[in-house]
């Protein structure tokens, strides 16, 4: 691992100096991902979870690749691989800038064990997952609103011989102020 990648790893995961070398020894070499690469494909259950060290990723969903949100340096993505029976991946992740990622392999996770680094990763994940749930929620509301708008039928033009094009206003009778008050108050008050 290069020195700057080590520094990023130490900074992002708050790795104590005495543990950094040990982690670096078991960690896979970080991957350089060119801009535009689909790093995780929907349905791909083989890719491990990854930590974004540098660059930017975007989460996409659906045939039209609707953007759900961004992945920033220090955030983990592909997290379903961290859990047994992690579930079907329906979201793709694509690099929007040239990026560097670290695969969270079983060896690395075992090396982390019960250390403070594990705590940092857990808190990282909780924060990120909560943010992504909000993003999905927002995308869902947008999708529903779009569907409702698309289903609203345009108004039919009225037949010209059925409706008058112009309906003349009725002229108001010219009532005195007293008469108008008496009329509006419905006889509740005797206004003389």
């Amino acid at each position: 691992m290069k020195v700057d990648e080590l520094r990023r790893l130490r900074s992002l995961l708050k790795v104590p100096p005495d543990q950094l070398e040990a982690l670096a020894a078991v960690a896979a070499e970080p991957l350089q991902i060119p801009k535009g690469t689909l790093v995780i494909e929907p349905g791909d259950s083989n890719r491990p979870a990854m930590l974004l060290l540098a660059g930017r990723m975007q989460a996409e969903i659906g045939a039209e690749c609707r953007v759900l949100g961004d992945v920033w340096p220090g955030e983990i993505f592909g997290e379903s691989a961290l859990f047994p029976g992690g579930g079907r991946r329906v979201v793709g992740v694509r690099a929007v800038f040239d990026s560097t990622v670290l695969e969270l392999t079983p060896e690395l996770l075992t090396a982390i064990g019960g250390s403070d680094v594990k705590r940092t990763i857990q808190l990282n994940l909780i924060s990120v997952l909560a943010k992504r749930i909000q993003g999905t929620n927002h995308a869902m509301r947008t999708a529903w609103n779009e569907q409702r708008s698309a289903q609203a039928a345009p108004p039919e033009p009225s037949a010209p011989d059925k409706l008058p094009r112009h309906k003349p206003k009725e002229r108001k009778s010219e009532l005195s102020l007293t008469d108008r008050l008496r009329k509006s108050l419905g006889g509740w008050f005797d206004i003389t």
Partner: protein
Amino acid sequence: MTRYGVDGDAVLLANLLDLGEHLDAPEGHLVCSEGGPPNAVWFLLSGRVHVTKRDVQGVERHLSDVAPPSMLGHMALINQHRRSATCRTLGPSVLRVLDVRTFKKAMNGRGAEYDLFRSLVTRVLARQLAAGNAELLDVLDGPAQVEIVDDEQTGDSMWSAEASFSGWSDHGED
């Protein structure tokens, strides 16, 4: 907590839950109200919880019925926002209540039981996100996009999705 893959650490988790208060709730007990403060998280150990939410017209709509073991109310504490739904017990239920102080201690603490607690919360959130994304994909690409013409059907599907996103999915019986 079999569903969340923490079977082997049941003793540790039980020790942590002991930090909270035991609640024997009768039928109809109000667990939390929509719009209420983020002041606790609940672990449903037995019974069932009925989850509702008001729609834009202010009408109470059924979101989901939650079965044990489940965690309730965690999103409000994590995101620091008011409750997104109302929860009432459907029958006599047993819950463990962690107040916000105990929850924060469990989330930030050092030790095996706190590691386990964070793993549990992570797993719950990941499951919730996966369910929400699956529902979203069905809306974007599935048959619902073309075939739905019935507002009532559309509404039910939307509320089902809302349940997933808000964390109130019906996990079913163990």
